[in-house]
């Protein structure tokens, strides 16, 4: 896989997230927003731990591992 294809796939995933969230807002939550879906995942204790651990990992991944200079 080339870098261009990988970046394109990342952009497609970001676009899909944006489109689904927008569709949810337009349909008045008949489809869940990202927040609604997160709310479901956060209901059970295990889900809450997993989602919040994922959030902490994201911060570590982006702000501890990556280089500030760009």
């Amino acid at each position, binding site marked *: *896989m080339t870098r261009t294809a990988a970046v394109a796939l990342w952009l497609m995933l970001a676009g*899909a997230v944006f489109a689904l969230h927008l569709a949810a807002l337009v349909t008045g939550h*008949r489809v869940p927003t990202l927040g*609604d879906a997160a709310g479901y995942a956060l209901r059970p204790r295990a889900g809450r731990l997993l989602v919040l651990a994922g959030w902490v990992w994201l911060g570590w991944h982006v*702000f501890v591992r990556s280089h500030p200079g760009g």
Partner: protein
Amino acid sequence: MRSVRAAWVVAAAAGVLAYAWWASVRPPFSLSAHLAVFAAAGALLVVGTRAGRVPPASACDREHGRFVAGLLLWAVLAASVVGFELFNWLQHPRDEHPTMSALVNSVDTRAVRPVLFVGWLALGWHLVRR
């Protein structure tokens, strides 16, 4: 009274921005970088938990087919993001297989990182209050 509240909000926003700027320019893998992220995460988890949860909108509890299908779509999207991240992480060279952090690096400037840090904090606040 409203002006005092507004002043507190402005001061808090300025504090968060200043912290985000400081935290987002720490050297990679340094102690200060770890402290900056984990201290912010810990403080946010404590404050967010004490602030209580926001009740879900009534429409969110509809268990009809479209809503459940939407939940499944979100699960597929989340699995795709995690799977593609892991796939890229296991491949080399990194330039050909960019992970999320590699992408952030490629568009990174000192002006963008604090904004990303504030976005990460906002996401955490949103999640912890759910």
